[in-house]
């Protein structure tokens, strides 16, 4: 089947969604996705960030679709033509969804552990405005403790429901879900149960915002001060392939390996994630690469400071002498007040 997205043609298998086709092409035309997660069944369609305009339905039925379609759940048809970034309507819709997502978001990025690897931050940089029209009080939730490993910040949540799907599809006996309705819908456990099972930590990785963060990493460091390395260990529960986030010689955080769309390559177990924080536990493979514009690339080891070349030893010595003089101020006459006799 042939699909054209923003003028670029691609051959896809039947059953491919528009978003998957766009990701095959890659580049700027890939719609942002806050709720879709290719590794989770039934995800997508909720956040409405990935809306695209279908200007031609298919070769068989060339009529355009009247509404903007969620690209993550709309299947490709043969001869379909899609406008993603090329359409002002789509641009407008993405701006409005970004605005809607941010009106009740606390915007506490300066104290949020997710900052730097947050999908909502990226979305707002691309499609957001610098000012808000929302002057009402934001809706807030009572804090809830869901165990000693995972921190839940319900105020930051955008209700993508990925974490519910993780619990449904990776673990037995889901204890959390969506409670209530509308803008008071919240991710919660019934009567404050701790979420405690072998793969629950993956909720942190799939969360696009800072609603679910790692308690063992809480407030330890900004992500761009860490040095991420690919590492592995023999684990009998999971694949054992992870990214370890180092600060000096200390492993501050362990996460699964994420690709350029911030989706994990393989889910990892809680033992690897929370308990193995010693360098001896891991075989370090090498630095983890991130996409070009990621703020994580700003950390120290990727960018080498320019070398300062100094010509001769004499000049160094001269400079030192000058410095010493300046600091000790031997040439400067001592200022005295009237009472002094010297």
């Amino acid at each position, binding site marked *: 089947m042939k699909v054209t997205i923003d003028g670029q043609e691609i051959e896809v298998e039947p059953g491919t969604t528009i978003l998957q086709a766009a990701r095959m092409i890659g580049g700027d035309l890939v719609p942002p996705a806050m709720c879709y997660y290719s590794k989770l069944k039934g995800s*997508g*369609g*909720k*956040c*409405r*960030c990935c*809306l695209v305009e279908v200007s031609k339905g298919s070769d068989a039925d060339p009529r355009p679709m009247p*509404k*903007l379609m*969620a690209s993550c*759940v709309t299947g490709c048809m043969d001869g379909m033509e899609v406008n993603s970034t090329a359409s002002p309507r789509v641009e407008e*819709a993405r701006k*409005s*969804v970004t*605005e*809607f*997502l941010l*009106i*009740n978001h606390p915007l506490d990025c300066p104290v949020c552990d997710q900052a730097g690897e947050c999908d909502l931050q990226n979305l707002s940089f691309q499609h957001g405005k610098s000012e808000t*029209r*929302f002057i*009402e009080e934001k*809706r807030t939730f009572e804090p809830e403790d869901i165990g000693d490993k995972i921190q839940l910040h319900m105020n930051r949540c*955008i*209700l993508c*429901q990925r974490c519910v799907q993780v619990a449904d599809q990776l673990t037995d006996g889901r204890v959390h*879900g*969506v409670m*209530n*309705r*509308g*803008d*008071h*819908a919240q991710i919660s456990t019934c009567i404050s149960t701790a979420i405690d099972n072998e793969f629950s930590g993956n909720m942190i990785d799939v969360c696009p915002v800072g609603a679910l963060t790692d308690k063992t990493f809480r407030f330890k460091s900004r992500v761009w001060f860490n040095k991420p390395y690919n590492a592995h260990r023999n684990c009998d529960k999971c694949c054992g392939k992870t990214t370890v986030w180092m600060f000096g010689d200390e492993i501050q955080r362990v996460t699964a390996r994420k690709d350029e769309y911030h989706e994990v390559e393989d889910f990892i177990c809680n033992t690897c994630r929370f308990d193995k924080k010693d360098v001896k536990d891991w075989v370090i493979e090498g630095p983890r690469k991130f996409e070009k514009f990621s703020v994580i690339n700003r950390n120290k080891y990727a960018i080498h400071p320019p070398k300062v070349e100094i010509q001769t030893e004499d000049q160094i010595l001269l400079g030192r002498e000058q410095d010493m003089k300046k600091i000790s101020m031997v040439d400067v006459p001592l200022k005295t007040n009237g009472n002094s006799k010297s």
Partner: protein
Amino acid sequence: MGRKILLDKINIPGIKTYEVYRANGGYASVEKALKTLTPDEVTEEVKTSGLRGRGGAGFPMGLKWSFIDKKSGKPRHLVCNADESEPGTFKDRFLMEYIPHLLIEGMITSSYALGANLSYIYIRGEYMWVYKILEKAIKEAYAAGWLGKNILGTDFSLDLHVHCGAGAYICGEETALIESLEGKRGNPRIKPPFPAVSGLWANPTVVNNVESISAVPWIVMNSGEEYAKIGIGRSTGTKLISASGHIKNPGVYEIELGLSVEEFMNSDEYLGGMMNERPLKALVPGGSSVPILPANLIYKTAAGEDRLMTYESLSDGGFATGSMLGSGGFIVYNDTACIVRNTWNFSRFYHHESCGQCTPCREGTGWLEKVLHRIEHGHGRMEDIDLLWDIQSKIEGNTICPLGDAASWPVAAAIRHFREEFEYHIRFPERIKNRDHFVNEPFEKVRNLV
């Protein structure tokens, strides 16, 4: 006097009970369909009748039935949508409460046409007493052999269950209703696949309104052609209208489609004119989600033609000067009504009932409600009117289900037709502090201030 199809037997004493209903020709359509017609013939009759879905969208019912996937070999289901929660609509409750066997008869005949052996009536949680009435009626129908195995000695079997929802407006959306019926959280599904292909427990399912299903027995008895003779153009048959507001005789009326709005409003047979002879200000013709009409567009369309009670005539002029027939919740406002307060009230409803699944509706309905609350309580700013317009335009069409559209249309229409009233609220906050601020000083009197 218009013809009555649904309510012709409503005044017979004891029609609620099986014996009286049967003695007055009840369940004859089941006999006729099962003994003399094939399922496809019943579907064909419904198609020729031109009956359109009475739940609000007005989709042709025969067409919907013909989409059901009969080839897959999976069991099929018919689900009756009795989750009537649209503000201003109470026709289904009336039908189920006073003549429950009509719905059950319709369910049997329709299930036969669709080949469904397990059917459901999904009733809203607030209608607990109606639920009990239906339960009792179903028990009677089982006892009399109209439900169960091998009905009337044929090889058609049908089990009918009533399921009580927990009181959510969103469960009136067909896919959310199916989710709720499956025991899950009532969130609308993403379409496609449509319920006709993969609905209840991934089986082909048809979801129809109570009133649509109740019209089927008459169509089977009197043929679809006869039904199509009533009404005008593509709006055939009769429609129940639940009338409320500032009128003399509020209640449920059965009208032939094609009746003029003026006659419906003013004749003694129907609404009997305005309460206390006050002037008419506005009309919501089809439940809270449809656009409100100002007085000058109620009796005549923008083109100067008479406005009729049909799907086409009420939506004449698009949303700029028209509205929709919707579910038939006919709400009339006189000049003491405050449109801003009314819009805020509707918005509050949608804010409360949004399921919270998709972003524009979840965040947008709350925002609309907060801004309207501010304007209504005297803290509005002039730019808020444009803000409201902008928010509603960004919700509309970008959501998974039509609730987003339903939340944005009333706001859009109120601003379109009654913008001055919003401006009045913003400019004179001290005048609107009193809850009944337009009762002694209707807006027409103070319009010059804006």
